[in-house]
């Protein structure tokens, strides 16, 4: 069985922000909001919690640094210590640049990877976008309760906040 979702289309940022807040305060479950660009303040309008990706980034960076440092120490001190320019086998200061670079590399790549996975973005994804939301439209998707009358309530609410159109769409669950 699948639940229908009510979509409300808006033409401008301010309206969609108000609408979103209103819809959420009216107690409807916000399925999602679709916008052509990152709308400032939408996160708290939707009541989203800050992302945990920052921690991924930190961890990855730490890992990169450790790997880099241990690789350099292993190759220059353990595996085959060579007298290079009279410098000590463990020329720690000389190992810092590479460690730093690898830290950044690991952090960056891992974070992006994590993001793509979490947001389920991948080549060949078949998910279509709502019409014009990547262009000049904003859309609010409300997951209504079973009672059809609620649909109208939600629709009215959005129209009252300036929705230019609404539609009821089936969600394959």
């Amino acid at each position, binding site marked *: 069985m699948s639940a229908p979702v009510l979509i409300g289309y808006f033409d401008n940022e301010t309206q969609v922000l108000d609408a979103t807040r209103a819809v959420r305060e009216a107690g409807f479950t916000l399925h999602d909001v*679709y916008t052509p660009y990152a709308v400032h303040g939408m996160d708290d309008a939707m009541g989203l919690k800050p992302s945990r990706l920052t921690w991924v980034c930190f961890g990855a960076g730490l890992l990169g640094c450790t790997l880099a440092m241990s690789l350099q120490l292993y190759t220059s001190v353990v595996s085959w210590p060579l007298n290079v320019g009279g410098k000590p086998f463990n020329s720690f200061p000389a190992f810092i640049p590479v460690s730093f670079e690898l830290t950044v590399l690991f952090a960056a*790549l891992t974070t992006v990877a994590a993001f793509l996975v979490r947001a389920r973005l991948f080549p060949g994804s078949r998910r279509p976008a*709502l019409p014009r939301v990547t262009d000049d439209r904003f859309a609010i998707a409300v997951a209504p309760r079973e009672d059809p009358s609620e649909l109208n309530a939600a629709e009215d609410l959005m129209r009252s906040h300036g929705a230019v159109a609404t539609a009821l769409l089936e969600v394959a669950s």
Partner: protein
Amino acid sequence: MSNQHLSPLREPLVTEPRSLGQLTEEICAPMERPPTWKWWVAFGIAVSVLGTGAGIVGYQVATGIGVWGLNKTIGWAFDITNFVFWVGIGHAGTLISAILFLFRQKWRTSINRAAEAMTLFAVMCAALFPLIHMGRPWLAFWVMPYPNSRGSLWVNFRSPLLWDVFAISTYFTVSAVFWYVGLIPDLATVRDRAKAGIRKAVFKVMSLGWTGSNRTWSRYETVYLLLAGLATPLVLSVHTIVSMDFATSVIPGWHTTIFPPYFVAGAVFSGFAMVLTLMIITRVVLGYEHLITLRHLENMTKIIIVTGGLVSLAYATEFFIAWYSGNPYERFAFMNRAFGPYAWAYWIMVTCNVVSPHLFWFKKIRTSPAAIFVLSLVINVGMWFERFVIIVTSLHRDFLPSSWAMYTPTMVEVGTFIGTFGLFFTLFLLFVRVLPIISIGEVKSVLGFARDGHEAQPQTPATPAAEEPHPAAHRPVAAVPLAIATRKDVPV
């Protein structure tokens, strides 16, 4: 609703009123219409230069580094000069997108995409030189630490050249990722505008199924912020490490602690010059005057004044320290720079880098694209000579007078250098054709900047997207059941 809309003091970043739709239209237009003859000419030239360059490099690799003008005293000249030159240019892009982003400099939005692209292409050009300057480039992979059957002979992590390998490759990778992440929403926009066909298919794949969901947007913002945060120290580290190629050596004129900041400043300096060069061309050719506004240019000239000042300061400091150190070799090295056989190069450098930026103090010049264009070129020339001076004049007369020598480039070296410009512009022209060179999403977010929201969007969106009748637009609510039957593909 954010307060920025209410500030009467700020000037709008997009000078003419535009609707979101119109923006999309404008930015996507160049890639949707067939290339103009101007583009073809430019592209033709670029490609042929590239081809020639490739031929020359082939010849050099086939014959030996001997076809260059180097000798037993001067082991580096054009090769490393060009390397540092291109890496330097490669700095503005990430700097603009990362550092200005962190500083919340909204005006960056309309130039960062192109600047980042420029970074990537410049770094490609730069990376070419460390490769071909090797005596045996086919063994270049030996600089990578990998287990092998030579008793596992590793690499020398004490060598600045090795740091370079890691720095440059990391820098390239991260910049590329940064750039691509920034592209994703726009790719989706293009995808949704495209009719069925190759473009649709390609962009479908490239946009990774972006739907504009705000849950994604919110994570996206976090990631972008993180990347910016990572890229900022990275961009500084890269030229620091490049400068260490010289700073860690013993050669008077190279062995200088001031090099890292000095090189970074120089990199930003030359980088912005190059961005200006490209932006001025682009805005004229593509008619983006209202997006890449005079204000953008002006801001960049200001940065140039600052970095130019830093560079001048570095020159002065070098000289002072050389004298103050009391080290005869240091003293000689710098006197030799200014008054030795390569004095001409030195004074070109000074004129271009120390004198010319100060013309930007004049509002007239600062606001005349033509003047800016010329000066940006001048500065690029100057920065190339800076590297040439540092490398060649330091090497050609070092400790033992017996091995003092002179260097003159050969056609092969010059040709290779020109060839890299071919590579650079070929890539840039392709970029202009196939990707939105302005970050649509970001510009939209600042469209309302310093302009009241409602007035900002006239209700006359004549976008092609609007022409296709919207499924739910004119349908009475009663007809909902029908709709239920029709659509099953709403994203979750």
